[in-house]
């Protein structure tokens, strides 16, 4: 097991190295005039560094003055020390900005994930148990609609109905107008209120795949021999479902849930942008659109790390949870 983890970790490092190389190369292949014009734009802002200073900083952090591979090594050397340079958009070190915003994203992600799980797993199981019933059809249709709904469209409809027509929530932002005057609990409630619509959006959009995953796995388990045996023994149907079947369905579910945990940090780019929640998604979106190369580089590497971590955790959990895998 330890050997397996070490092997996978080394693999991840190797993959990450190449991913970083590709991302760096893409950034370097952006026409240089673009980089220069961004530096020029930045330098023309009031209170900013001069153009030559910006370019010098660029060269220092990104090694733009040397070849792609040498420049990459230079960038990598500071990146492994978690020094990703200064953000052009926010005029602070990238890591500082990151630390400021990441917890908003995590809170949004975690709350949404929690609701997603408590809705989709029971729904998926009921659909599987009552296969081809009306409930099953309803779950399938809802799941597919969730998968097919474009985030931006659904979020806009939610805004129209709940913010504009009913006036229950604010259209944008994470805090209300009188946030500063509220008590600590009031401030918490204020933020929670602003998180309702984004959470709804994320939950509805993402429950579909989890529902279907649960349903498929539950069906597979229900068709297996040990369930038939249990039924043949005369075990009560309730017990068959909740004890024999459910526990076995949990294997793939735990695996995928574990694998999704790093994803909670990735931020919901579209949702955060639409609701202007200053999490990592919205902040990065602004940075990317504003041509903030240091922040964009960091964000993409961060996303790659999260993806790798997700698969790694899923693989390890799979072996941990399922004794049949551990033997091999």
């Amino acid at each position: 097991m330890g050997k397996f983890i070490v092997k996978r970790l080394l693999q991840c490092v190797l993959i990450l190295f190449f991913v970083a190389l590709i991302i760096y190369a893409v950034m370097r292949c952006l026409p240089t005039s673009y980089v220069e014009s961004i530096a020029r734009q930045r330098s023309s802002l009031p209170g900013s560094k001069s153009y030559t200073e910006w370019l010098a900083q660029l060269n220092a952090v990104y090694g733009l003055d040397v070849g792609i591979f040498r420049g990459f090594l230079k960038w990598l050397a500071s990146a492994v020390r978690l020094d990703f340079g200064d953000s052009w958009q926010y005029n602070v070190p990238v890591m500082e900005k990151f630390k400021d915003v990441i917890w908003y994203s995590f809170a949004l992600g975690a709350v949404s994930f929690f609701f997603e799980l408590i809705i989709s797993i029971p729904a998926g199981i009921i659909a599987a148990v009552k296969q081809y019933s009306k409930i099953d059809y309803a779950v399938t249709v809802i799941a597919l609609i969730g998968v097919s709904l474009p985030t931006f469209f659904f979020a806009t409809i939610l805004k129209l109905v709940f913010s504009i027509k009913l006036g229950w929530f604010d259209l944008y932002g994470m805090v209300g107008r009188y946030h500063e005057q509220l008590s600590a609990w009031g401030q918490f409630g204020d933020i929670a209120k602003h998180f309702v619509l984004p959470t709804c959006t994320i939950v509805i959009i993402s429950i579909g795949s989890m529902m279907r995953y649960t349903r498929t796995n539950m069906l597979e388990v229900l068709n297996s021999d040990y369930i038939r045996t249990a039924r043949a023994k005369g075990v009560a149907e309730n017990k068959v479902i909740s004890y024999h079947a459910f526990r076995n369905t949990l294997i793939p579910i735990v695996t995928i849930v574990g694998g999704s945990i790093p994803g909670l940090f990735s931020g919901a780019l579209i949702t955060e942008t639409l609701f202007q929640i200053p999490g990592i998604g919205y902040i990065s979106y602004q940075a990317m659109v504003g041509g903030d190369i240091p922040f964009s580089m960091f964000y993409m590497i961060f996303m790659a790390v999260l993806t790798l971590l997700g698969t790694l955790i899923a693989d390890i959990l799979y072996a941990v949870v399922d004794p049949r895998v551990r033997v091999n």
Partner: protein
Amino acid sequence: MAKKKEVLEETTVETVETPEKEEQLALDDERRIKVLSPSMLVWKRFIRNKLAIVGSIFIIAMFVFAFIGGIVSPYGESEVFRKYTDLTKDYAGITQNTELRYSDLSATDFPSIAKAKFVMAINKGEENFKSDDGSSYTIETIGEKGEESYAIFREGTLVSIASKLIYDAVEEGYVPTLDFRYAAEKAKAAGEENFTADGETYKLAKVEDDDVIFDSKGNELIYISDFIVNPIGDSEFIPVEQKAALKEAIEKNEEKITYDGVDYKIKRENLQWLVKSGQEAYVIDTYSSPSKAHWLGTDGNGMDVLTRLMYGGRVSLLIGFIVVAIETIIGVILGGISGYFSGWVDNIIMRIVDIFNCIPTTPLIIILGAMMDAMRVDPTLRMIYLMITLGVLSWPGTARLVRGQILSLREQEFMTATEATGISVSRRIFKHLVPNVIPQLIVICTMGLGDVIITESTLSFLGLGVKFPFASWGNIINAVSNVYVMTNYLFVWIPAGFCILITVLGFNFIGDGLRDAFDPKMKR
């Protein structure tokens, strides 16, 4: 061989009703057995799936809507509609002049300080005054008391005319000389009909209560009145005839006049009159509500929403198909090679798959989109770049699927047979292995189409995908970034959203139905 076996297993036996008098058929007689090929079985299972049928109807409807609708629609993709509308515009301000207004030779000859002295002088009834710089001025009063005007001489030279009368030139830009004014004022005060100035003879006459000066050829040159008419807004020239008409209306206390086919409204504000013109303006027909001509109204650019939806559907569907084609081609080739050869080739290709799987697609495309924005890349080129980027970034899933399937198929007997008969490797992969993966490929492609359409519309919504003038469902919904549009013009963005939803839902229903239909374990 494996395929053959499947056929035998899946053969459905249906007893055909035998008429009594016919010969007795053996139980396994060909005529008593209806043989269904695997594809027919798949088809039968597919059409039994209600959701799949609904999905197919959605997709067919969307195709008809996008590809045939675009031809049938009488409008073009970026045809802008205009309409006539009544615009009330502030047209002119009119003031009745009660003060002396100066027409100076030049600013230096009669400075404002001297003007102040002049005013003091006439108040006292003096005929001479001195300015601070020592020059002495002579005042000549023209006309009767109450309607008088003054000519001011500085050491014998005429430097200014101070008068309550306004001289409006018929021709735009014509400014009468000072000598002309002097002669004209004198003639008017004396009631003479002719006067001479600058060596030419002019005629003064009354035309419908207005004093008009004609030149020697009898052309109208100047209208004299005590009304000042200032055009408002764009400095357009108001013809004297119109000024006369406005003046007449004011004198008669009328509130409305029509001049040259245009309606004017006159409103009095103290000693001023504001004239508003009800001009018919030809403007772009933006956000017009659904009507017979535009079933879904027009958008912010004055384009027909329904037609934009049709063309947007073409773009979205085409992009979907091209991207899926790119990812399938790359995925099948790399997955096929990887699964067939295994060993180090497999290892390398799988690591490449891992790497591509890790590259965050959306951020990368957003950055590229922002870059192309900054570089002002042509919209057509952008669309091509978008398709290539999406295709190149999304093949790993397909490659993994193909590889996994081929790994298990490779061990089966029919592959041993191909090896024994000496078929070349590429033929073995692409002729014997890949066709067996096609069911799963079709499923993943159908679902993939939906994903691509969502990704593309999201990017277009953010303004980083398909750009104007091309329509795309995403960039139609982009209008909601303006909250006013979002609240008040639902007909602009709601239909586009439903188009995306229905199309993607259709592809997902079909994919789902196909997956069930292809699954041999499925017994229904």
